């Protein structure tokens, strides 16, 4: 069972929730898909068992003579190729690795080489198998890292699997929820929160994913996100109070469900609800 945790807005508590739900389970897998700013590792501090470099293919004309026909330059929709001073120049950072230039080169001078864009770390932290993707600084897209983590068929994941998604609603989020069986939308009680909740709600509907919401940082005052959920008939799985103690534990990257009986009970009960809803 793959459960994705997403929010649209950043800082609503995706990592807090996915880390604590994974820790509250008897055994589980936690996959951090926020490869631009991965934080799950800071909480779990796993014993890292394996590091895998993730590479994409980029074209290279190194050591070969380019006749300057520019067929590949004209073909490349991403403007990743240029022919300057009698040489073919490859802008590796904007290449999408489609392989079109190799297919079209009439002289067959192009080859592909691996370009490492980041890595995947795999490890164990007590009852949780922890997988984290890390994108290298300056690289534009972490999609290949997310793909590798979620579709690695050599690995048998321990159920349930929690997928900690990046913020936003664009390509990296779509990739992260693609294989999910259930989505948890985390929302905070602000106008910004509800506006971005609406966006991920539209996204999970578009992909036909069963979903429910967790309301975080709840105060006594009116909660626009709660009103939104009631309005749209989104099942509210639970509410986490605005709570200085939890915020402090979290800011020190401590797993509340592990260090405090009170929060262990809270997240265990939330986990039961999530499992029940997701099994429907």
């Amino acid at each position, binding site marked *: 069972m793959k459960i994705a945790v997403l929010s649209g807005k*950043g800082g609503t508590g995706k990592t807090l929730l996915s880390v604590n739900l994974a820790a509250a389970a008897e055994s589980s897998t936690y996959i951090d898909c926020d490869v631009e*700013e991965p934080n799950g590792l800071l909480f779990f501090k796993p014993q890292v068992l394996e590091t895998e470099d993730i590479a994409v293919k980029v074209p290279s004309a190194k050591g070969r003579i380019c006749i300057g026909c520019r067929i590949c330059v004209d073909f490349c929709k991403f403007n990743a190729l240029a022919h300057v001073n009698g040489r073919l120049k490859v802008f590796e950072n904007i290449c999408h690795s*489609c392989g079109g230039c190799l297919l079209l080169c009439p002289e067959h001078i192009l080859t592909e080489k691996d370009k490492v864009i980041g890595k995947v770390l795999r490890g164990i932290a007590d009852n949780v198998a922890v997988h984290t993707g890390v994108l290298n600084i300056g690289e534009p897209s972490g999609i290949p890292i997310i793909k590798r983590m979620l579709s690695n068929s050599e690995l048998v994941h321990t159920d349930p699997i929690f997928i900690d998604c990046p913020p936003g*609603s664009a390509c990296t989020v779509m990739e992260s929820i693609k294989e999910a069986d259930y989505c948890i939308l985390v929302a905070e009680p602000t*106008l*910004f929160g509800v*506006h971005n909740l609406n966006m991920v709600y539209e996204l999970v509907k578009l992909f036909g994913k069963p979903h429910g919401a967790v309301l975080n940082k709840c105060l006594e005052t009116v909660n626009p996100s709660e009103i939104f959920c009631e309005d749209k008939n989104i099942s509210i799985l639970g509410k986490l109070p605005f709570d200085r103690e939890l915020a402090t534990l979290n800011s020190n*990257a401590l797993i509340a469900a592990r260090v405090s009986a009170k929060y262990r009970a809270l997240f265990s009960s939330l986990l039961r609800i999530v499992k029940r809803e997701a099994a429907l």
Partner: protein
Amino acid sequence: MKQLLILSGKGGTGKTTIAGAFIKLSAARAYADCDVDAPNLHLVMHHPSEPERSDYCGLPKAVIDAGLCIRCDLCRLHCRFDAIIAEADYRVDHYACEGCGVCQVLCPYGAVSLRPAVAGELRLYQNDALFSTAQLRMGNGASGKLVTEVKKQLNSAGVDTELAIIDGSPGIGCPVIASMSGVDMVLIVAEPSLSGISDLERIIKTAWAFRTKMMVCVNKYDQNLTRTEFIENYCENTNIPFAGRIPFDADAAEAINTGQTIVDVDCISGRAVKRVYEETMRLLFQGSD
């Protein structure tokens, strides 16, 4: 025109809250929201008239004409994005297609064409101030290109003003890199937590990689004083100017929820952000007189 971009690495540290306050404090006549897949600045920046809207087309997407397709499978075999689906008729998965054109150029029967696809909407408000923003359409990927369009829209309007404020997106990937190009300075809004510090280091390294001038402020600093001090020391040791601290303030959420910025009401975070603003402006305009 000096352009100030507000970034954070980590999401939810207060970019938009601070951008909104800066726009009010400076009475900026030009500003933009580059967080195209979760834009929020328009919720606190009120304009009397509706924006001018225009469709944004990303890269075109492949479409297969079933009448011409002979199911040779060449397109599917060569598609690196697994975007060709072989069903009764061959079809293209729109979400997976990146518009590279390999299928089109390979098809021996001309059954594949690339067609423009609307991937979002650009919005331009032109009243006393110019406000450029956009919304990426659900299920689309090319957010970096849309960010570039938002900035083009901001620059092309030719507003004669000293300062433009740009609200950025979280992360360090393509939309962030696109938003950094050409700006005069980045203000990074940090959060005093271990996660926040890890994310701060990554956005700082990204700004360095693109040789962008930057400064740092800490929001909700009182939620963890030890971590706040760590960030201040980190900045000092790496020679990054520190713009100040803003306290956690329940009144801030209340202001936002009524569609106001934190300097529209009298609150402690609003008073603190004024000092951060003055410090930021001092550095941004330093030596430019």
